[in-house]
């Protein structure tokens, strides 16, 4: 079992900028480091660039400038062939879930394992267990179009954590679930974090941010600040976003 190993750096951004085409920079001079085994919320108003920042983290795009290092490897200029092994060390919960509609919940969650070459016996042992844990034990063979928004989100989360990622990146993972389920999912992320997974969660849910007391990466107008955990009480701050 992987243990948290503070001291090593999981992510390092140095003067990273991102622009789409010839448009203005949506991210400007972003610099921060995430220690291995750390937990951060990514907060900020809508349109601040949270999804763009996460897409750089989960290697969906390259920065227009600057340097990004993941697990010590420079990825902003890495060869394409070097990316799949790095991506297998990540778990991603996409904002729109991005489940494959023709596959069952079980097969969707099994994808990262199949891609990594895990045998079918192991897949059929671990995947149903995790689906049951996220409350989808009765929907294992259901296809995403027949699931509710919250159920799809839980499938997406199960897919992101099934291979015990070293870095978990989640974009609004609790946006479509009730408070009780949101809390339960945050506890799952927290448990993974205790096992050594570095976690970055973009969220607008101020209640969760206050409750879990993790530091924040706060984005506003394309610029990033690293902020301490939000106080348990008190009025909403500029760093807290909306609930």
């Amino acid at each position, binding site marked *: 079992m992987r243990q948290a190993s503070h001291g090593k750096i999981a992510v390092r951004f140095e003067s990273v900028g991102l622009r789409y085409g010839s448009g203005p920079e949506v991210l400007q001079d972003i610099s921060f480091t995430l220690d291995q085994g750390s937990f951060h919320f990514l907060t900020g108003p809508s349109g601040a660039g949270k999804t763009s920042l996460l897409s750089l983290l*989960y290697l969906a795009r390259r920065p227009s400038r600057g340097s990004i290092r993941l697990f010590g490897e420079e990825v902003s200029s890495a060869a394409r062939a070097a990316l799949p092994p790095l991506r297998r060390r990540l778990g991603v919960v996409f904002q729109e879930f991005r489940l*494959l509609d023709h596959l069952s919940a079980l097969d969707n969650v099994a994808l990262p394992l*199949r891609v990594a070459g895990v045998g079918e016996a192991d897949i059929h042992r671990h995947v149903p267990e995790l689906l049951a844990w996220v409350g989808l034990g009765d929907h294992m063979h259901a296809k995403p179009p027949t699931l509710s928004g919250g159920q799809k989100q839980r499938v997406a989360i199960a897919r992101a954590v099934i291979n015990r990622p070293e870095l978990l990146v989640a974009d609004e993972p609790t946006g479509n679930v009730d408070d009780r389920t949101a809390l339960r999912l945050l506890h799952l992320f927290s448990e993974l974090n205790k096992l050594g997974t570095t976690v970055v969660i973009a969220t607008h849910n101020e209640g969760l941010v206050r409750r879990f007391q993790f530091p924040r990466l706060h984005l506003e107008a394309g610029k990033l600040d690293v902020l301490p955990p939000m106080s348990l009480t008190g009025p909403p701050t500029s760093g807290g976003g909306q609930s």
Partner: protein
Amino acid sequence: MIGFLRSDLPVARDASGQFLPWLVAVMVFLACLALSGAMSLDSLLDRWSRDASGTLTVQVPAATGANADTETDARVERAVRLLESDAQVARATAVSRERLAEMLEPWLGSAELMDSLPVPRLIDVAVTPGAMPDLDALVERLRAVAPGAAIDDHRVWLARLIRLAEGLRLLAWAVIGLVALATAAMVVHATRTALAVHRPHIEVLHLIGATDAYIARQFARRAFALALLGGVGGLALSAPVLWGIGGLVQRLEGGLVPEITLGMGQWLVLLLLPPVAGLLSMVTARRTVRRTLTRLL
């Protein structure tokens, strides 16, 4: 097979993929006809080449007057004996009247008519391998025992026939090559269409760590299965056509067209066409996917 075809992408439902077996069936059907033509011409050319270098035909004109038949037979017999005494002749065989009647029947009709005509007799001569007989001297000696005898050297017209057959064989191989190219082009088109349709799914697979090879394998396996299915269909369609052509050729009499049959080995080569079409499609799909994916991150 189900495990082999298990796919994370919904490639099985593609409209482009649904047409592929039908198109490959037509291509394999054409390739099958062209290949059997090429293989038949191969054996025919072998036979003709051997004949061209090793055989002659001596023509002995029919005698006239009383006892013409007896006299003609005597001339043929003298000519055969003379030929057999020649060291450069391996074998000389007179073509019997019955065989001659059979060969001429398509043109002259019944054997009775032939009896009333002064049809020349033929002697089939096999030349000793490697020997180059002096045909002018030989015909002089033959005319001494069989007045008017002539030697029909097959070599000139057979050489022209061989050139024609070689041209046809080349054409058959060109058809096979074009069919292979057309099949590959169809697979490229179907694969590119499928790639465009499934791009969002492919992005997800990439982001969870799938390599290009992993994604390409899914398209390649599907292309193999569809092309194999189509290939078997095309082969099944061509079998009765080949039997039919073989039957029609056999019904031609008089040696106008030499018997064209496929041996067991040649049938086995035809049986290889569907898997070859499958492999061609598989390799083409894999290369197409990998080349296209290099343009993505």
